[in-house]
């Protein structure tokens, strides 16, 4: 009888140990996945902001009339130009940033941030952008209502960008999140040559 009791107690203890081990293992794995999603979201943010910063800072660069560099300015879409290499042949390029739904990812809210060069193919990857918001300011620091009307496009001096990135996949219904809010003052929009 005693032996039977010992076996039962041992089985219960082994059961508890196995359940605990499995839970620890499962927690460790899900946390590793969450951490990886977080890391991917931050890396994606770095990739996107590097591209956007490089382009936005060069708005109007090398153009004869830089104040006419922006031809469309909406809350999540912008079209502008700059000369890619002002020291060589004039080769003004047109760049468009906009968002399109990302239908292939698990996250229902993410979009693809598209960078389109000179009416060419739209380039963009599903990096989990859930918000891409642009706000435009004039030289007095006042917000210009979007879409900025064509008469006011030349008044844009600063652009504030808000990007929120969520992971494209969830873990236990949680999406990793990274946010970046900053402002750009394209130097060439501050200069007024010619008309």
């Amino acid at each position, binding site marked *: 009888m005693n032996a039977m*009791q*010992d076996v039962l*107690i*041992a089985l219960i*203890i082994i059961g508890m*140990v196995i359940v*605990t*081990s499995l839970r*620890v293992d499962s*927690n*460790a794995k899900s*946390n590793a996945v*969450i*951490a990886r999603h*977080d*890391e991917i979201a*931050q890396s994606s*943010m770095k990739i996107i902001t590097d591209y956007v910063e490089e382009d936005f800072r060069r708005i109007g660069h090398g153009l004869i009339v830089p104040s006419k560099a922006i031809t469309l300015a909406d809350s999540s879409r912008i079209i502008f130009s700059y000369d890619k290499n002002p020291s060589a042949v004039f080769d003004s390029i047109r760049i468009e940033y906009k968002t399109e739904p990302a239908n292939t990812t698990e996250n229902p809210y993410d979009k693809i941030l598209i960078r389109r060069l000179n009416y060419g193919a739209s380039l963009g990857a599903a990096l989990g952008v859930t918000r891409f918001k642009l706000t435009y*300011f004039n*030289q*007095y*620091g006042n917000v210009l209502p979007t879409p900025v009307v064509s008469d006011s496009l030349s008044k844009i*001096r*600063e652009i*504030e960008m808000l990007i929120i990135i969520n992971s494209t996949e969830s873990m236990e219904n949680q999406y990793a999140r*990274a*946010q*970046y*809010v*900053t*402002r*750009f*003052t394209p*130097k060439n929009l*501050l*200069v*007024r040559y010619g008309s």
Partner: protein
Amino acid sequence: MHLGNTLFTIAGLVLLSTITLSLNTSILQNHVVLLQSEQILEGIALAQKYIEEAEACRYDEDGSATIPGSFTYAASFGPDDNEVYPYFDDIDDFDDFSTTIVSGTIPYQVDIEVDYVNDYSPDQPTTSRTYFKRMQVSISSPFLSTLASHKLVLKRMFAFHYFYSE
């Protein structure tokens, strides 16, 4: 159950608990590192925002000043009586500006200093009036604990410039 078996069982459970706790600590630390790198990103973006705002401003309060002798004295830096953020019109209006920005639940204390500097010594403030101003934006938060003094500092040197006719 013999005493020896009981002791073995207890030792095993203690070992399991220790492993579980150390694993949890490592997971927690991993999360903290990730959150802090996210906060550093946010802090850099915030500091950059103020620097970019200053970029759009005149070099000096006096729009017609073109030589250092006619620029504002360093002791008079700061906003004029009628100037309030975000309607600053020259770079030195940002001097001694400070505010707290709360992003989600994380507070960021912003402190800005503007000084004259020389091109040959861009990180050494001078009381003389020069063609160069250095803006130093400090972002501090108790959550930036991986950084010294819980603070990150971005600096930008602005050279004398003249943008457009006003």
